[in-house]
């Protein structure tokens, strides 16, 4: 059993269209999921889950482009709308109906901001998707690593939580790990930002007495958790940097919820 060879595939929309097929769901990878070394591992974990459950999915591959989220929030509406309309043209040309993404910023933009520009899709975040799989019993989180006795705290992403009121899905997903879930003081609607939103990720912070991610990591470390679970590529970077800042990277790890599920499932 230990040496079972698994092969995972990543079909593109172009491949599918050429074969005259349409996927059940489009996995929107996002820029961080495509280029950021750390978040690529999340993309891969999620793709393995998609393969594992046998759903007919596809990605846009090289046809995908930034949703424009950081441009819009920085104030560059022109650039945002250029990105949005080009993406909508691509999505509509493939007749895309359902999208899942592991990035709350892409999720929020695709779900809430594209409809007014002509792109209306059923968009879900990977936390909701995983929650569904667990509820339907398609993922049992049994064959892999055990998380029993581990202490996990979940950091709410602003664009998943406050922006779209998705607080329970990621927590339900983590609950399936049978680990010890501990909450920080500022959670859900009162969750504290990691400091990356609103295009902050792409510039140095303004002068202050502390960095936001350090403030947040201190709170996370205060729970005594050995794992900080996130559901957003920017939170991932900010929390990981914060843990390093506190010299705790050996004892405290930051993982995306899909990585934890993939490991629990033995993928």
């Amino acid at each position, binding site marked *: 059993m230990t040496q079972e060879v698994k092969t*995972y595939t*990543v079909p*593109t929309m172009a491949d599918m269209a050429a074969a005259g097929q349409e996927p059940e769901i489009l996995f929107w990878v996002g*820029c961080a999921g*495509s*280029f950021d070394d750390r978040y*690529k591992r999340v*993309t*891969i974990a999620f*793709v*393995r889950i998609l393969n594992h459950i046998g759903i007919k999915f596809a*990605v846009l591959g090289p046809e995908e*482009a*930034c949703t424009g989220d*950081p*441009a819009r*929030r*920085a*104030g*560059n*509406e*022109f*650039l945002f*709308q*250029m*990105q949005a309309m*080009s993406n909508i*043209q691509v999505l509509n040309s493939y007749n895309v109906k359902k999208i899942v993404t592991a990035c709350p910023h892409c999720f*929020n933009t695709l779900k*809430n*901001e594209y409809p*007014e520009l*002509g792109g209306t899709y059923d968009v879900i975040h990977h936390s909701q998707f995983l929650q569904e799989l667990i509820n339907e019993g398609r993922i049992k989180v049994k064959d892999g690593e055990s998380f029993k006795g581990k202490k996990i705290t979940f950091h709410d992403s*602003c*664009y998943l939580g*406050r*922006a*779209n*009121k998705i607080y329970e899905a990621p927590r339900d997903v983590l609950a399936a790990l049978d680990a010890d879930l501990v909450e920080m003081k500022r959670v859900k609607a*009162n*969750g504290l*930002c990691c*400091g*990356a*939103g*609103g*295009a*902050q*990720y*792409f*510039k140095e*912070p*303004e*002068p*202050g007495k*502390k*960095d*936001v991610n350090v*403030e*947040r990591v201190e709170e996370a470390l205060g729970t005594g958790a050995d794992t900080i679970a996130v559901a957003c590529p920017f939170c991932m970077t900010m929390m990981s940097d914060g843990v390093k800042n506190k010299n705790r990277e050996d004892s405290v790890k930051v993982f995306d919820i899909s990585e934890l599920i993939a490991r629990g499932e033995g993928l």
Partner: protein
Amino acid sequence: MEIFQQILFIIAVGSTVWFITKRIQLISRAIKLGRSENRFDHADERLKTMLLVAFGQKKMFTNPLVGIMHFVIYTGFIIINIEILEIILDGILGTHRLFAPYITPVYPVLIDVFEVLAFGVLAVCVVFLCRRFVAKVDRFQEERHREMTRWPRTDAAIILLAEIFLMIAFLTWNASDSVLRDRGVGHYGELQGIVPDFIISQFLKPLFLNFSDNALIAYERSSWWLHILGIMAFAVYVTYSKHLHIALGFPNVYFSDLQPKGEMQNMPEITKEVQLALGLPLTTEPDGSQANDNGEQPGADTPAEIGRFGAKDVQDLKWINLMNAYSCTECGRCTAACPANITGKKLSPRKIMMDTRDRLEEIQRGWKTHGPDYRDDKSLLNDYITPEELNACTTCQACVNACPVNINPLDIILQLRRYRVMEESQAPASWNAMFSNIENNMAPWKFSPSDRFNWADQVNDVN
């Protein structure tokens, strides 16, 4: 003597009404400076939000203890005002407790309720003063928040002290009146057997037992007058104060945003340009407005806004942003929740709202001295709100979430950023780099778009 008091009273009521009308006109003119936007849609949802958040004070209960205390002042304010009706009629007609003989069985019950609430308001106002000035709750302190200058702190103290004063006047008025009634003095005695002692003021009666009849009448009259004149003065004062939220909080919540908090408002005037650039069919009206906007709201004429993207001054903001500014009672829950502010950056969402109102009031002063078409050369951006503040925002919406009356400081920040970036090309250098990466590489980083799918090569690698 009676008729003299009545005339004086009618003059007082008249001038209060006149003054407040003037103030309402001025404030609504200021709000109408904002861009038009239809917020009369989705009446059901808006009504529901107003019932929950404004009438039900839902968001105040985030901290249940403070929520309850605020609820006491709020219900006290609304319910005790029923008594004002009788007081005003008494004042105009020269009567004393006009309603008592007509609703004899319920009259004492009503006054008892008012007295309990009055006592509650008094107690809570004392607690609130202590929270501000003794316990020094962080969000009210100037040392931590530079927008909490002398005036906002004085304003808060004036309001709380005024409410304490009004409640004391009301309760001692009832007590002195009870003593006069017991003694059967003049017309006061006529209500003997009709009006009993009241639930709270009965305990204050001993204070007046040594008073002579004349001294007692003098106290009764002056407390009655001070109470009602105090209320009138307070009503006028409120229009100059942060306390205006007691009136504007309700419409402000009704007209507040309905979309998910993460959704930033679209700019249809840009959609048109982008569609032209990409050679797509146009979906918006030529003037940039999206299909017809019936149920017009303030500021229908729009020439000034054409050609300006985002907001430099209050006229470029939407009318709801300006109503937000007048509805802000400077409680600072937004600022206490702001990650930038918590970590010592200059940004404070409360200051954004206070600056917007201060700028509006500066424009009003200009109208007064130079006529109604006067425009000075100042602006909200730079003269009030600095780029450093704007750039520090993470758009996390914690401020929007925290506001008990659904004010949206983030919307103002975003519009000012839009002006800085699109009209002045004044984005921080690393944002400009990010923009050009998105434009050229389809990602905010400098990676080749052709490498975008390379991650898939690693999908079968061992973990």
